């Protein structure tokens, strides 16, 4: 989980999740508290889903909206 996916992808990390910014990888303090919570859940859930995804080479996972529905379920 990193704000700079280019680095881990370049050095061979298998599952890379794009975070927000270096000082706040897992969320965004510029957002309202509710939206920030959503974003955090989205990033972490994307990361957990990445763990269940088969990969053969360094792979980037982009946190997206759909995982939120999964969390809500």
């Amino acid at each position, binding site marked *: 989980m990193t704000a700079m996916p280019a680095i881990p992808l370049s050095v061979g990390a298998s599952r890379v999740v794009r975070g927000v910014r270096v000082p706040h990888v897992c969320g965004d303090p510029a957002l309202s508290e509710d939206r920030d919570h959503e974003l955090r859940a989205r990033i972490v*859930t994307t990361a957990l889903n990445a763990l*269940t995804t088969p990969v053969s080479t360094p792979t980037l996972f982009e946190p997206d909206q759909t995982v939120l529905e999964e969390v809500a379920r």
Partner: protein
Amino acid sequence: MAEAIRVVHYLNQFFGGMGGEAQAYEPVQVKPGPVGPGRALQGALGDQATIVGTLIAGDNYFTEELDAAKPAVEAYLDELRPDAVIAGPAFDAGRYGLACAEVCRIASARNIPAVTGMHPDNAGILTYRNDVLAVSTGTDSTEMVAILRQMATLALKRVRGTELGPAVAEGYVPTGRRQEVMHDKYGYERAADMLLARMAAKPYHSEMCLTGYDDVTPAPPLRDLKDAVIGLVSSGGLVPRGNRDRLVGSKAEQFFKYDIEQVGSLTVEEWESVHGGFGTLILNTKDPNYAMPLSTVRYLEDAGHIKQVYPQFFSTTGNATAVSAARRMGGEIASELTANRVDGVLLVAT
């Protein structure tokens, strides 16, 4: 006159004149003096060295019956007592390249200088880059004589203890070692010269060959998150406020474990980041969970999305960390997590 240098040459079944694929299972054998390309090699060595024997083996034999091939080569080397071993060249033939690399490694282990020749992408190089001195070749075996001449030159230098120059200057495949040299020109002159050569489509040598990045086999996916124990690791310099273990802000060589069994969320009252490579104001005044999302993971744990969060988290500072230190720490953390049956890990890199 000093005694001529004794050389043993290694060839596969094809160049050794035994035949093609049908003879690929021929075991290691010796013939006196030079054979096949060995004659051109002897020509290149001139009166400075003598090929006292040629070892020949089938490519399949050598790679598939390595346990038998190795002692056979060892025995022949002990018998022939060469001052140098020259293997190949193998060009882009992978099995032959591996065999040449193995022969060179056996010689090196006996303190006998060894030189081979092959394409930089040959399996022999990819497998044994750090151990093998190989003249860099193309894929065209009509260059044989020129390549053998280079191999002879390198071998004679090695026997005489002459220090080798950089790989591009000497024509060998880089062995993974980088060393400082003094050039004749300033860096900015070299940069301008290199750029001019490139723009004119003339040959140039880049001073950096960007290899050596890890090629990691990905772990198999988790089958079910709901059954998974998830570990947490952060390189964001997170420590209990006060930094009792004195985790450093850069060039870390240590990691620490902190108990989070009873912790639902990292708070600024209890935790801080000592990372020296980015602005930590947000982590230290607002929310340390941005560098390790414990609160979110707990929420998902409570909701049953994962089985459990591992009760300790691993913390270090990822800032100007040496690669070897990072590799060691990563290995230690991974061993401990696997020993404790952790199924998956979230690692936050800041």
